[in-house]
């Protein structure tokens, strides 16, 4: 085996995963899993730098959102801190025709789809429930009930097959995001069954960030999550979810397999939720500081930065410029979030039914009349 190549088992013990960039910033040329699949990437210097920009930007935007929540400008925020590589790597692996079904934490994936990062902020500020068109952005609305979207993704993928859009390199594929906690949900297991039975063009992308709010992985599973796939009859692969290169390589390969008609893959992105579950959570109640510290050493951004510096692909000026650009974006985001108007109260009656309802119409009319009954009301 040549230098810089590595073999890991698809059945490897905990910690065995596909990794193409070590925490110290060393490149691994390729990794071959026990089933004989070899993963590698061949990025240009610019592409490496772009990935770094993505990672820094989504972290900076996330930090701004956390600050906005602490300042009372968002009702809640679900931070992606620590999961930047899993999201940017998988998001960049999508081709334009691919459809993503996120949970409520995939702000990084959203960003890589070229979507204005303000799009989900209505939900977190409390001015709407999301409100975007999934088909316009190839990015479904955020789904909050854990795991429900994996079935939507599966149905959508079945539709791709029914439309005859698989079986060639231009075919379409779906990626379904969920977490380690979601793997206990019946609906997620049903989506595995259905995707296997119908050979759906789908990649199940599990960000195993080690915690479902307070409950550790051991409360969800007795075996590594990626090994569940075997029971459903499709491949499962574990990747270093803090390695943007491995994430990209494996996700791209799995998506291409799906679009080519080879069915589903489960990817377990082994990562860590550096922050709280949401801004309402207090992780100091259930995990120790040394654990968090150990994961800091595996940070997804610092390892790519180390690689870029060692390879002389970027210098301090570049890093400073990236930071500055991310800050500008974040401040712009802040301004726009602050200027998001509250919805008109009467709008709560909008969009209940596509064809309307006489009941809703009557309630709206009574509500308007009631509002108007207050003297000096400007409603």
């Amino acid at each position, binding site marked *: 085996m040549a230098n810089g190549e590595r073999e890991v088992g698809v059945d490897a013990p905990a910690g065995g995963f596909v990794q193409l960039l070590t925490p110290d910033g060393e490149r691994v040329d390729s990794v071959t899993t026990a089933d004989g699949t070899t993963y590698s990437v061949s990025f240009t210097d610019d592409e490496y730098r772009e990935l770094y920009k993505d990672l820094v930007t989504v972290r900076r935007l996330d930090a701004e959102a956390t600050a906005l929540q602490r300042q009372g400008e968002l009702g809640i925020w679900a931070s992606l801190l620590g999961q930047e590589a899993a999201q940017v790597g998988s998001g960049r692996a999508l081709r334009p025709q691919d459809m993503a*079904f996120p949970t409520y934490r995939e702000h990084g994936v959203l960003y890589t789809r070229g979507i204005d990062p303000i799009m989900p902020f209505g939900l977190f500020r409390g001015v*709407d*429930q*999301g*409100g*975007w*068109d*999934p*088909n*316009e952005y190839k990015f*479904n*609305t955020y*789904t909050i*009930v854990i795991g*429900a979207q*994996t*079935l*939507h*993704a*599966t*149905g*959508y*993928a*079945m*539709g*791709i097959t*029914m*439309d005859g859009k698989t079986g060639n390199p231009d075919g379409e594929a779906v990626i379904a995001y969920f977490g380690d906690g979601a793997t206990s949900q*019946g*609906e997620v297991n*049903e*989506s595995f*069954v*259905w995707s296997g*039975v119908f050979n759906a063009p789908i990649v199940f992308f599990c960000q195993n960030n080690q915690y479902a709010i307070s409950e550790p992985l051991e409360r969800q599973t007795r075996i590594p999550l990626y090994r569940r796939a075997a029971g459903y009859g499709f491949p499962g692969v574990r990747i270093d979810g803090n390695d943007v290169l491995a994430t990209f390589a494996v996700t791209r390969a799995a998506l291409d397999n799906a679009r080519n008609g080879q069915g589903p893959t489960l990817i377990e992105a082994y990562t860590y939720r550096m922050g709280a579950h949401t801004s309402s959570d207090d992780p100091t109640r259930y995990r120790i500081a040394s654990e968090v510290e150990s994961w800091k050493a595996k940070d997804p951004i610092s390892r790519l930065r180390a690689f870029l510096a060692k390879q002389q692909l970027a210098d301090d000026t570049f890093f400073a410029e990236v930071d500055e650009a991310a800050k500008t974006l974040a401040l712009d985001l802040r301004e726009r979030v602050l200027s998001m108007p509250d919805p008109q109260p009467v709008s709560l009656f*909008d*969009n*209940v*039914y*596509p*064809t309307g*309802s*006489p*009941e809703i119409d009557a309630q709206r009319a009574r509500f308007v009349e009631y509002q108007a009954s207050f003297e000096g009301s400007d409603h």
Partner: protein
Amino acid sequence: MTEPDRGGKPQKKTVGENLSLGKALNHGLRRSLENDSKVVIMGEDVGKLGGVFRITDGLQKDFGEDRIIDTPLAEAGIVGTAVGLAIRGYRPVCEIQFDGFVFPAYNQIVAQVAKMFYRSKGNVRLPIVIRIPYGGGIGAVEHHSESPEGYFAHTPGLKVVTCSTPLDAYTMIQQAIATDDPIVFFEPKRRYWEKGEVDLDADLASAYPLHAARVAREGTDATLLAYGPMVRTALDAATAAAEDGRNLEVIDLRSLSPVDYPAIYASVRKTGRAVVVHEAPGNLGVGAELAARITEECFYSLEAPVLRVTGFDVPYPAARVEEEYLPDLDRVLDAVDRSFGW
């Protein structure tokens, strides 16, 4: 006599044919499949078997396995994947095999199907029909005789309808599939074999509106409000009451969300008395809401309180005592007597 192939096998010319309610549903589904290539049927045993009640009989043979999909045995999966198919532009018709089996899909129906249009500010339409054979009276084991319509009628974002005649079965299933609203479609399973006239060539555009109540029998003395399997019971009661000189009006609600209140108010203002009949338990059920609304809107017309004849507030009982549980002609007439005795 046959007519040209419309995508399925040649159809018998059947204007004004006498069809069972189940067969009328089958014809309605067939016509929807012919008219729109995006319509797909999915459920357990809907393919080769034609469904446990044979409502999808023969459809897979004519429309193929891609459009009549035998699914894995998982109700959440049926409805959840239907959501994804609908996002992609399909019009899925889901069959839930029995009323008591809908609960594994409850999360998908109530938290996803009902809310997607609202969540997406009108960007995502889910033209999904969820067919549920419901109600008792067939001597079945547990979970096969329930009336869960109230759960769904209570949920904003869903529309809920139920047919009582073969003609309505034929037109309403097509209307439900054609509308962009998500529809929970309750089928009165014990009436599947009852027959009636159906014009299979009727123009859907001029059909009776999906969410309008229908006066099933005109009368002057009291109003019976019923839907689904209880419409037949109410009509039988009205026939019996006529022998006693009481002329009862029977309203078939047809739609439980939204309810056609104007039709109800018009009838009750005319008769001054209302009795609601349903199989579901009475506590906080459809009848409770109807009674509240009628009281509010028809207060000065009422000669007596609105009365309810419903299932008891117990789990659906064993088959050998279900006749005692189910509202029947005598219990309806007893309520009518109580109304007149007020």
